[in-house]
């Protein structure tokens, strides 16, 4: 696994900082926020990113979304002992990634130059830079991964959907290895202005207190940026290569609300959770932890609380629920991947991070929450929820690997 997050440019550092209760949310520095009301964000540290990319021998593509994914992919491949040192050697591995916005920087650059300089001001290579599948293609080319590569776009569910699709590819025997996960870099003027205007972003003046999933005092989400990459591999292939197995994906469910472009539906989300349980051949009684979507918007957290109760039935009051977004904001198309990574590590180590800003749980979010300290968990099975604009629901079931 590999991660580029506002709390570190590798998986281990990000995890340690979350466990230590550090918050990656600050005032946004990447753009001039003079006219913005949404001033807080979780940004990746540029200096650390640059050092990590150099150490991993990754040249910048000039697009932050791609660079995040490339740097996290390098970490994941190195840890999985699958990074090619010889550019002539190809690896039979698919690249299936998620993104919410896509190549945001390249898109903004093209729009900006078109408006300021006209047609001739637009860079001739704008199309291969803007297209969202540049993310998976660049990784495929850089690391010589010759399986299919494409990008899945299902808003905030993108990475979780991508991981689920990758899981199915392996389960169906199409391929033995898939590089999967998600990436997003939202802090560009045009798209971030849209988020600012949408009215779902917290205006809390204290950055580290601004993202408050399931808290009665929450006033919206806070956006973050980064990437999370996982190498999925068939059990036979991993055993044959004798590499450490970090965890197991044992179920994936998805659904559409089929109702509204932004307003979520408990029934739609619950259906995705039930589909995931069915796919894993499990009952709610098997689940020991839920890593919630938990965006800290009024609508999401209340809806997700209902959907969890609908799907988990009488087991709801027993299962600890936490959201990681109070640490690194809502990383959109990367969130599902990074939160899957924290869930896998949590199961591996038997401990899950606290609900950082959950001071006063909203009575309308009637769930059993992890408290303000990390919590020991014995159960080997967890759920990762991701729900996106568009009524896109994706749910993974993860299990601690036992030989």
């Amino acid at each position: 696994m590999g991660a580029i997050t506002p709390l570190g440019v590798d998986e281990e550092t990000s995890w340690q900082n979350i466990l230590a209760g550090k918050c990656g949310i600050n005032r946004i520095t990447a753009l001039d926020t003079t006219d913005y009301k949404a001033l807080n964000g979780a940004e990746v540290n540029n200096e650390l990113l640059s050092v990590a990319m150099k150490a991993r021998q990754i040249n910048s593509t000039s697009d932050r979304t791609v660079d995040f994914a490339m740097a996290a992919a390098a970490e994941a491949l190195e840890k999985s002992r699958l990074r090619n040192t010889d550019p002539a050697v190809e690896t039979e591995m698919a690249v299936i990634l998620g993104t919410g916005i896509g190549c945001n920087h390249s898109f903004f650059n093209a729009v900006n130059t078109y408006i300021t300089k006209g047609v001739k001001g637009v860079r001739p290579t704008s199309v291969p830079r803007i297209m969202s599948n540049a993310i998976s293609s660049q990784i495929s080319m850089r690391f010589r991964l010759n399986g299919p590569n494409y990008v899945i776009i299902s808003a905030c569910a993108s990475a979780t959907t991508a991981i689920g699709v990758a899981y199915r590819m392996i389960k169906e025997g199409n391929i033995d290895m898939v590089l999967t996960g998600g990436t997003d870099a939202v802090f560009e003027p045009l798209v971030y202005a849209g988020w600012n205007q949408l009215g779902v972003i917290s205006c809390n003046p204290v950055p580290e207190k601004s993202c408050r999933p399931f808290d009665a005092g929450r006033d919206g989400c806070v956006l973050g940026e980064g990437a999370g990459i996982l190498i999925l591999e068939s059990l036979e292939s991993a055993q044959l290569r004798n590499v450490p197995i970090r965890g197991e994906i044992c179920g994936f469910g998805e659904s559409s609300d089929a109702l509204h472009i932004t307003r979520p539906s408990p029934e739609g989300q619950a259906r995705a959770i039930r589909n995931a349980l069915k796919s894993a051949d499990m009952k709610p009684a098997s689940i020991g932890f839920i890593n919630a979507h938990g965006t800290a918007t009024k609508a999401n957290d209340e809806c997700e609380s209902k959907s969890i109760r609908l799907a988990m039935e009488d087991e709801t009051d027993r299962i600890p629920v936490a959201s990681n977004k109070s640490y690194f904001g809502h990383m959109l198309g990367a969130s599902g991947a990074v939160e899957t990574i924290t869930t896998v590590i949590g199961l591996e180590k038997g401990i899950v991070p606290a609900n950082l800003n959950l001071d006063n749980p909203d009575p309308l979010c009637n769930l059993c929450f992890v408290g303000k300290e990390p919590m020991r968990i014995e159960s080997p099975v967890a759920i990762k929820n991701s729900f996106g604009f568009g009524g896109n629901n994706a749910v993974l079931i993860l299990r601690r690997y036992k030989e």
Partner: protein
Amino acid sequence: MTQQEIIEKLRTMMRKSSQAQVNWDSVNADSAIASLGFDSLSILDLVYDIQQEFGFEFEAEELVGVKTVGQLATFLEKKQK
């Protein structure tokens, strides 16, 4: 802008456009452009960056015969006059 200054600028732009592993610090007037890892796509980026940097346009046909970084710098030096 002197030819040396143009070469410095070209080196920075080339480093950005080319994805090849090149020892850019050793690139000089005699370096063959063909050895710097450009393909039909990345050369478009380089031409674009040059045009944006120098503020004038030129056609690809005008570059026939330009083989080295120094020759390109001479072409640009003449063009800016």
